[in-house]
């Protein structure tokens, strides 16, 4: 049950996507960083059951740069929370890096989040009273690294996003773009399997957005798996694969070229894609 074909997997159509799911239906191998099988998430809102996800199958390979798109209410936030191990599905399986995480307990999930996932949030979510360096150190604190090593590692991470000079500044002394770069440094400091970004440009102006997208681009080029949740088509267009959600289900799963083709008119209208 644990074998599937290595190599190029076509993902351009729903049928092909289902084929992948069928192939990865068994225990996913090392090359597949994320595999979900029929995950559902239901909320009990005062007696009324809200079906946020109605059975989602996604397989993401190492080094992919994926955007998850959808209008509000499509279930993309719920999916992101599940992928980010902040939540567990009501039904279905989720394999992260070959480990079944969908049935894990709180503390195990915390460990997985610490080791495997680097979060970048729309609102940056930096600790306001801590310096940039200390913010970047946080995941290392919970990983149990010694103070000295932590400082060095965090400083290196800030160096990679060109923020060495702003290391000892607090978030309110940094610009939006700088804050998001601190958040990216923090997300990457533990060398996670996936970089999970939730509307990373939502609070940034268009120029800064492009800057941040460039950072993501270069990370993807360096082999970092990047998953980005967004409702903006032009931002999604930076990814090499776009998974669209609609009403809690995957409505399309396209590679970048096809996505650009399909949405060219809309993107051109918004001022084009850089990079």
């Amino acid at each position, binding site marked *: 049950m644990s074998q599937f074909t290595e190599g190029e997997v076509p993902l351009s159509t729903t049928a092909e996507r289902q084929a992948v799911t069928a192939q990865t239906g068994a225990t996913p191998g090392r090359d597949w960083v994320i595999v979900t099988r029929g995950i559902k998430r239901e909320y009990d809102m005062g007696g009324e059951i809200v079906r946020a996800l109605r059975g989602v199958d996604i397989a993401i390979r190492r080094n992919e740069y994926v955007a998850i798109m959808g209008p509000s209410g499509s279930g993309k936030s719920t999916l992101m929370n599940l992928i980010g191990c*902040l939540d567990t599905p009501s039904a279905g399986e989720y394999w992260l890096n070959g480990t079944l995480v969908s049935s894990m307990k709180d503390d195990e999930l915390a460990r997985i989040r610490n080791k495997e996932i680097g979060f970048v949030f729309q609102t940056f979510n930096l*600790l306001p009273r801590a310096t940039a360096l200390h913010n970047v150190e*946080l995941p290392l604190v*919970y990983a149990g690294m010694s*103070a000295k090593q932590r400082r060095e590692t965090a400083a290196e991470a800030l160096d990679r996003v060109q923020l060495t000079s702003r290391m000892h500044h607090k978030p309110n002394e940094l610009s939006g773009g700088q804050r998001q770069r601190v958040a990216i440094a*923090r997300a990457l400091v533990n060398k996670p399997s996936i970089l999970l970004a939730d509307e990373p440009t939502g609070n940034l102006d268009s120029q800064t957005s492009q800057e941040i997208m460039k950072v993501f681009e270069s990370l993807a080029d360096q082999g970092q798996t990047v998953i980005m949740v967004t409702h903006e088509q032009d931002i999604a267009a930076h990814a090499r694969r776009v998974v669209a959600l609609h009403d809690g289900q995957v409505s399309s799963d396209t590679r970048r070229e096809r996505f650009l083709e399909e949405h060219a008119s809309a993107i051109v209208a918004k001022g084009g894609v850089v990079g």
Partner: protein
Amino acid sequence: MLFIEAIRLALNTIRAQKLKSFFTLLGVCIGVMFLIAVVSIVEGMGRYMEKDLIGKLIGVNSFELRHRPNINMGDMDPSVWEEYRRRPRLYHDDVRPVVDALPAGTRWAVVSDNTLPISSRYSGGPRNAQISAVEGDYFAIRRFVIVEGREFTPQELEMGTPVVIIGQDVVKRLFPGLSAVGRELRMGGLPYTVVGVLESQGSAIGISFDNQVFAPWQSPVHRLLNRVPQIIDAVIVQVPTASQMTEAQERVRQVMRTRHKLRPAQPDNFSVQTAESALEFWNKIKRYLVLAGIALPAIGLVVGAIVIMNIMLVAVAERTREIGIRKALGARRADILTQFLIEAATLSTVGAALGVALGIGLAKLISAVSPLPATVAPWSVAVGVALGAGVGIISGVYPASRASMLDPIAALRQE
């Protein structure tokens, strides 16, 4: 998460919110402050009682034969008073048999005392002073040092010569600016010649030990000290070593029982008083004082604990997003729990430390402006700080567990 990291975090929080932290700490601070102050004063009084007061009243390896104890501290039962009142007095005739029964090398003295007015031609009207008529080795047992003049001679003691040895206060009052030795003072209408002046004995709880006049027991003044001239107040005995105390006391008891014709079943109708027996009551009272000294500040600590719990609940609510961030970055429940527990403990330990400092200050202030002595006991400092930390941890448990149970998604969504 690292322990030190959590403490650093807590200190940062305190520094960032100074005023709020100050009010948070106030309860614990005041509780610990009063604990330290009260315990210090009780401790100081204890030391004082043991070393100075009782030591001065009853000398080393000494006991006093009296018809009833003269150091009565505390709540005496009326029936005890009644029994004391019915006891026969000691008479000068009792002295010889008692002294004869004592082991060799023992010192003894007879004393009768009362308050009488005294006067001299160098000062205004008569003033009251403590008059003691003494016989035997009184000054040696009490270790009184004569700084001017001399002691009584055996002849003076035997003949009852009207001579006196006086304390520093008497010198100041009756012979202001004069040398007292060789001059006269009057007691009970008779003149007495000053032959010696005592070194200052200091004071205890505001009562001076220097307003004293000593005369030979046989001198006329002894008639004025008690209702019947032959009555004496005490026979003081000092044995050479502590090991002889029990035996000497027992011999004195037997002599007195025989003289008072007591049957074996009857209890003693006289008292043999030692420093320990005088301290017994103090030790009892001290227990209550220490208990009160801990119970009253405990109320402060409870209030402090409630305040800290409240503030921590507010902190958890205010920092819900921070908790969400920390959880997203990999903090486990235990990490969040520890963080808030340590924050509460650090807050209240800082408060306790402040309270210790203020408490020591308060104790010193009280002992400076009042006759109450104060000694800061190291154990009370340790207890104070430990109490502070304990209060913090206890009051931090509920808020911290609330924080640790927060759902990271909901916490992150909070504005």
